[in-house]
């Protein structure tokens, strides 16, 4: 079973290929996990990816790069109660 971590520039690939368990990070090319020497960001990105393994969403999960980290769903996950985003700062789901 796979979980993919993609920078925002690769969003269209995720959509084209209908990839399951896709985490989109709003990071620049070449830094999908985050900036250098920022272990907290790296841990948050990896945690978000791992959470997709056990708590999948319909459509990719997006993680923005600004502090505080926020997660938004492009599509609500069926049956999701304690949503992944609750682990980060509260955010508005589009």
């Amino acid at each position, binding site marked *: *079973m*796979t*979980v*993919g*971590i*993609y*920078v*925002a*520039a*690769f*969003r*269209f*690939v995720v959509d*084209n*290929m*209908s*990839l*399951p368990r896709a985490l989109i990070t*709003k*990071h*620049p*090319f*070449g*830094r*999908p*996990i*985050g*900036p*250098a*020497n920022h*272990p907290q960001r*790296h*841990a948050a*990105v*990896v*945690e978000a*990816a*791992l959470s997709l*393994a*056990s708590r999948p969403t319909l459509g990719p999960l997006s993680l923005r*790069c*600004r*502090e505080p980290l926020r997660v938004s769903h492009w599509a609500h996950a069926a049956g999701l109660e304690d949503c992944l985003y609750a682990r980060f700062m509260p955010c508005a789901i589009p």
Partner: protein
Amino acid sequence: MSESLEGFKDSFSYGTRNDLSFKFLKKLSPELAGEAIRQILEAIGTTFDTGSVEELHELVIDWQAAAYAPAEGAARTYVYEDTPWTPLAKPLSDCRVGLITSSGHFVAGDDPEPFGLLDMTQAEAVERIQDFMKETPVLSAISRDADVAELRVRHGGYDIRSAVVDHNVAFPRDALVAAAKSGRIGSVADVLYSFPGATSQGRLRRKALPGWIEMIRSLDIDVLILVPV
């Protein structure tokens, strides 16, 4: 000799001003590239007052994404109508997690030697990007416990400056090891993998992937993290 805006923006993509963080400018029309540059310069000006570069970073990322997004009506490639789906068979805390990235990492002493060349530099890889795009990629095996001083990265398709400073920006080994130590996951695979993603996609699919998939399936990995770079 004067230079057109088109020549200027294209020069960042393997041209005279090569900067792989801004090679996306070549994909924009001159009008849009001009607007991107205007917005970026405006955001730089704002940082003098706010002291924050976050909006500037987001602006660059947004333009990068816009540049790579396919044009409306363009033919879509690698389109699949069905989605492979494997449910997780056990708790994540019991799972063995693997990693494969297209970041071009390898271990010193195990250089994949592209084109038979040992110790190819990053500059040489950039110079030969077109040759890489015709090649079948080589998968490098990296011990989970490899000394960070032994990690190397080389990839002609992206700006590796950040990956040279900290492999975790594209090869998140440390975060996975920490997740195992905390009990979030059961364990990290003994061997992690990486290859340079600037490669022939056709050869990747036809020649490389079948063997890689067979190999990875034999490794008793429950969850595989994929990081395309």
